[in-house]
Each structure stands twice: as structure tokens, then as C-alpha cells.
């Protein structure tokens, strides 16, 4: 139970907020590796595909008064799990959409996820675009398939946070999640206990959001 106790306790006057975060993107772009680096500061050279989705938590301390706890859904990238995605992003406050900077097609997939999120997820969802496997390009610049400028321009246009990351070297991983935490509407999140009402997070400002999923309900 350690680490899963009642949320909302923090130093006197400190702020504590809990947010749901979902990772999306094509398979094998490094979603689980980014999470592993973020949560455990580890990296596995060989990692088996995620099956379904894994649920993890990690707490980020923004400053001495502010703590943000992420409840992370690390989803599997395979096409066959696509119909489950709405379940994971439905109540998400933030999303990290990952692509592989050495695979141009993975950016296309990322763009389609972003479109879907913007259409179907919470209206105010914060989306970050992460171009992973920077280490591969550092080692061999010829392997780059997506120019930084292109992805950055797209991110800007779509209103996304953007980072190129490396789960392997941990480059920009902490920065990515910290940037998201900073962008979340902390002021509206008082110190609350999510456990008391797990169906609606402390930040669920749009109660109607739960009802807007038509897509996910029919196909199984």
C-alpha cells in the first residue's frame, strides 16, 4: 500500500494535486521506457511489449509547496488495442503522445492520436508530443527521419508541448513531465483526497466529459 495511501496530505499550506496522464503512440516507440525512466530512473535495453495497459504512479515536486502526483496509463501501441484507448484517455488531464524520431511513420500515427484526443478527450487536456530515441540520432545523425523543426512547427500549430527525449540517456524525460505538471491548473486543485471519489478526479471541471464517449462503447 505504500505510495498509495490517502492523497492530499502535504506540508502545511502546501498544494497537492493528482492528475491522470495517458501515454499514446505507435508500438515500439518507447512509451514504457519513458515511463520506466520517469518512475524508476531505469532503462531496459530489451523490453517486452506492453500487453493491454499498465497503471503506475509517480510524484513530482515542483517546488517546496507543490507536489503533483501522476496516475499514469501506459498503453500498448498495437492496433488491436485501439478500441480501448478511449477508456484510458477519457478522464485524462494530460497526455504524452510519443513517436520515434527515427521512424517517420510513427509521427503520422502520433498526429492521428492527437487529432483523436482533441476531438474526443477532455476539452482542456494538456498534450505533450515527445520524439523519443534521441540517443540513436546522437550516435548516428543519419538515422534521423523526423527533423526537429518539422515536429516543433507541428506541435506549435496544434498547441502542444514538445520535447525530443531519450529514455535511454534520460535526456529531457524529467523536463517533459515537469513541463506538463507546470501547465496543469494547479490553482484549482485544492488538497483533496482522490480516493474519496475515485470516479471524478479532483480536477474534473467538466462533469459532462464522462458522457461524451460514443466511440468506445460499441466495438469490443
Amino acid at each position, binding site marked *: *500500500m*505504500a*505510495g*498509495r495511501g490517502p492523497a492530499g496530505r502535504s506540508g502545511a499550506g502546501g498544494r497537492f494535486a493528482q492528475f491522470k496522464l495517458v501515454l499514446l503512440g505507435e*508500438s515500439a516507440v518507447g512509451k*514504457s521506457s519513458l*515511463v*520506466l525512466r520517469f*518512475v*524508476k530512473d*531505469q532503462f*531496459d535495453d530489451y*523490453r*517486452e*511489449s*506492453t*500487453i*493491454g*495497459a*499498465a*497503471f*503506475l*504512479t509517480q510524484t513530482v515536486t515542483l517546488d517546496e509547496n507543490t507536489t503533483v502526483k501522476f496516475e499514469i496509463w*501506459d498503453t*500498448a501501441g*498495437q*492496433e*488491436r*488495442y485501439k478500441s*480501448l484507448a478511449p*477508456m484510458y484517455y477519457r478522464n485524462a488531464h494530460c497526455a504524452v503522445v510519443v513517436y520515434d524520431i527515427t521512424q517517420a511513420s510513427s509521427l503520422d500515427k502520433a498526429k492521428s492520436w492527437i487529432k483523436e484526443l482533441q476531438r474526443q478527450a477532455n476539452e482542456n487536456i494538456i498534450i505533450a508530443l515527445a520524439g523519443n530515441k534521441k540517443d540513436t540520432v546522437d550516435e548516428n545523425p543519419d538515422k534521423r527521419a523526423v527533423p526537429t523543426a518539422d515536429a516543433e512547427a507541428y506541435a506549435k500549430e496544434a498547441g502542444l508541448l514538445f520535447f525530443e527525449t531519450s529514455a535511454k540517456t534520460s535526456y529531457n524525460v524529467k523536463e517533459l513531465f515537469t513541463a506538463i505538471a507546470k501547465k496543469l491548473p494547479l490553482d484549482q486543485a485544492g488538497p483533496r483526497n482522490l480516493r474519496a471519489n*475515485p*470516479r471524478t478526479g479532483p480536477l474534473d471541471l467538466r462533469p459532462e466529459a464522462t458522457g461524451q464517449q460514443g466511440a468506445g462503447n460499441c*466495438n*469490443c
Partner: protein
Amino acid sequence: MSQHGDQVEHEVQDVSSDPHRPPLPPRPSTLSFFQDGSKPNTSSRPPTRAGLVSRATTALSVADANAFSSGSVRNLRSVSSQNISSPSRSKSASRTASETADDSSIRSLELSSEHAQEQDSIFGEAFHNKRSDDFGLDSGFLSTNEAREETELVPQVDFDQEFADVPDEHDDDELAHNLWKAKKKHFLILSAAGKPIYTRHGSDAIISSYVGIIQTIISAYTSWDNQLRSFLADDTKFVILSQTNLFLVAISTLPESEVQLRAQLDALYMQILSTLTLPTLSHIFSVRPSTDLRRPLQGTEVLLSALADSFTRGSPSTLLTSLESLRMRKAHRKIINDTMVKARVDDLLYGLIVAGGRLVSVIRPKKHSLHPGDLQLIFNMLFEAEGIKAGGGESFLPICLPGFNNRGYLYMYVSFLDVASEAVRELDIDEKIAKEDAVAIILLSANKESFEDLQSMKSYLIHELRKNGSMKVIHRAVQNGRPLPTDIVPGTALRHFLYKSKGNVQFFMPSFEAQFSDSQSRRQLFSIYGLLHASVHAKFATVKVQHMVNTTCSALAWVTPMFELYCIASAGTPRNALAQNANKVVQYIQREEERIFLIGGATF
């Protein structure tokens, strides 16, 4: 997945309406036999079949045989009615036995020394009752180097080599093919159109020609309106499982029967269905027969390989199509069951606690049972493959349990626990846990929105299990491990045994420790079990007791309507000692049944 052609739809219904779903967990009513039989040590009763008695020329009386009051179960008596001249391999010996055994339900098969000149090293010596003290525990039963040369019967497998990657063809064509051919066992899955879907060994480039040949052979038979099920080439056995759109092929040089290999292929097919469901699989191929199924299956190769490798190592649960439970007191198990039922949420279909691949507790609705094959799929996914265990924390995934319903998904919530630590915390991401020590709470629901409910059920469950001390009970049971054969029958000559309770669809076995701790000797052990199992399960076999002797061991299979027992002792162990020990094992299990097996489970 809503649109199917008529034909596809029809097939789907055929399969899903299959009423043969073996009941598990079973009803406690199966207990009655054991209760009846628990009266201790009535003197041994002769087999009821007159013919048998009259033929028993050298019947050895078994002093301490246990008597079952049920007339359908005969006492185990060693009856050496005749020496069957020894074919060079006991596989054929058992075939002979089953052919000639119509008039005898109990037979001890002696492999005589007729071929002693050549086969002396395999069978002859042992037959001449080598004194058992020559084969003391440390003399390396099944593990000496001589044994390897002699016992072609139970070939050794170098697992490092067996599971090593085959290099790509580009590097060295011939080397790659030779390495591929050197594997003891292959599994290939191809589409009806001949596209490779899965291979345990080798890249596409290496297997393509073999896949082509196999497909040609299979389709030749199909075109003659015949179905090719298996064939033998030299010592290599080929078994083919034909499904509507798939061919699954096992190629093995290990001593395994067709039935056993087919069960393994069935398990692989179930794994594919559990990923895709049958309607999806049918739909994919009805739209485009040439579809490359590897894409929709992407990421599950590891699960197929985990299954395949467990078969190559030797899997008691597949051999016996049953599961193993964690041994604990009946009262303790009841508390855990009750706690689970109390913690149940509305959406829950099945709730399981599993420790190191052994069942601790099951709760289920009254009208639904659980298929052992389904549970094996789950156990494979959780305990053999790393994907979910390595994910740490909690997982939630769609899974089709073909035994339950091959047409749709259930949603499975999994949480791995560290029961050892004082706090019973959840495992951190990527914390490495040994398979044997991993304890998982598995909650299944038909509702894909059930994650939060199942998660809160788990939190409550852990809290309650800690409070009532059950976590400690589980932890202790896990730590205790399996008993040694000598813990079960003091001073026994038995090195290992497998006991399957047919009514409970569960098996029990002692620890592998000391004798079979390395994977090679374990493989040899399972090769012997495989031979024993094959001989008593051969088509039309009426053999109920099979005694097998070779230089490395003396082994016995005993099948009754209630159980199957396979036991192995050191070479030279006399038949009557083996029979006596077998009886003691059965007595022990009968006495401990409610601890060893999970009986009935809790229903709601």
C-alpha cells in the same frame, strides 16, 4: 467484428456452442470417494477381474497396500504376467502392451534382455535387479554422462543451445540451417495460404523453404480429402493441428506422443485466440485469405515462445491438463475465499489469487466454471512471460478466454504483490521477482469500464487479507515450497512423482530439489513422464498400471477413474517397493487432499 460471411458466422456458432467445458473448479461431490476410501489399511484386495488374477503368475503381494472401498478402483498390485520381448524403444513396447493388453488391466511391462547384446546398456542391466544401493541419491540418477549416451530414450537437451537465437541467413547460410536443424523441437504456425505466422526458431529467410514444404505436404493430403495429422521421419515426429485458417505444426525429436504434442499445439492456438478472439481471426481471413497475421498478433510472440519453451522444458500442467494449487490448511483457504467473496464488486466475474503459478483461491459465479486451459493461458502470460510482471504495479488488459467464450473479450486486472515484506506493498515497477515468489491478484470482468472498481476491490482485499493474517499464511506457504518425496513417504525410493486428481482437475508433485534442480535433468524426468503418460493413454489402451525399467530409473504409471499417478524411482528399485511407495503416496494425498487441492472454490 460485426460483419462475417455466412459461413464464418456458422463456424463461429459451432465452436461457441460446444458444450464440453470441463468443470473447474469442480464440485466437492467428487470427494465422496476419498472419504469412503479413507478407512486405513484394510488388507490388500485382489483385482476384481478374474481373468487378470488367473493370469498373474508371479504376482507380488503388496504388504501395505491401501484398499479403496470403491469397487471401481483396484489396488495396485504388481503383476508380472509375461515378459514382453524388448523392442529397442519402450515407446514401441508400450504399443505392444496396449495391443495385447485387452485381457489384462494391470500389467507390469518388463523389457527383457532378449536383445541384450546391443541393448544391454539400455534395458538389460536394470532388469537384472541392480541393487538399489548402487544407485544412491548421489550417484546421479539421470544425470551421469554415461546415461546420456545410453538412454536415447530420454535425450538430454542443452537448453542454452536449444533456446539460442538462430543467426540470420545472411551471415552464414549453412551454419544457420544447421543450427536450425539442431534444435530438438520446433513450433511453426502458418496460415492456410502458406504464410508464416510464428516460428520459435529462425528468421523468415531460414524457415520459408521449410514452411513451403510443410504446406505442400499438408495441402496434398487436403486435396485428397484427407487430413494429415502426424507423420514420423526417422526419429522426428511431426504433428499438425489444422484449424480453419491456420496450421500449427510441432516438430519434435524428444520422446513425446502425438497426443501430447497436439495438446501443446492446442495451447498455442488458444493463445492466438486469446489475443484475437475467434470471430476476429475468422474475419481477418475471410476478408483477405493472404493476410499476414503477424501484424495483428504483434507483441504476443513472446507469449507464444514462453508457452513453447515451457513445453520444451516439460510442463506438468499441459501433460496432465490440470493445475497446481498452493498447499495450505483448509481453514486458511476458507478464510481467503470468504475474504474474496466479501470484497467482491458487482462487475467481478472471476477472482483469483495465484502464487508462483499455483492457485491459492478462486471465486466464481455459481453458473460459470473455469477452464484449466484458460487458467494456463493466464498463468503463462503472468508468470512465464516478463511483459506484465516487468510492468510492475497494476495492469489492465483485454483477454479472450477461449474455454469460457472464444467470441469475446474479458477484462483482466492484475496486481503483483510482494507478500514477503512486512507492509505487503505492491511491487514497484520493474522489480525483479522470481516466478516462484510472485503473488498476483487477478480479477476478471466482462465490463471494460471496470478498472476502478476492480482496483478498489484489490485495495480492500489486500487490506482485509493483511488484517486477518492471510498474507502471512500465503507467504509462509510460498516459502515452504513443495515437500520432498522423503517428506511425504519417509525413506522412500521415489525420486519424484506426479499425481493428478481427475475430479479436481489439479495435480500435485513434490519439489524438484536436489535431483532435478537443473533444467536438463528436469527435461529427462518429464521425458519419462511423457512416456509413461503416453503408454497409459494410448488409443485403446486398457493398461492401468505400467511399470517401466531402464538403466536410469524404475518408473510406474497408475491410472484409476479418480486419479493418475506417475512415479519415478532410482534404477533397480524392485517393483513391489515401487508399488508400495505408490500406495503410500496415494494414501498421503488422500489424507491431505483438502490442503493439497483447492476443492470447489468459493461461488457467489
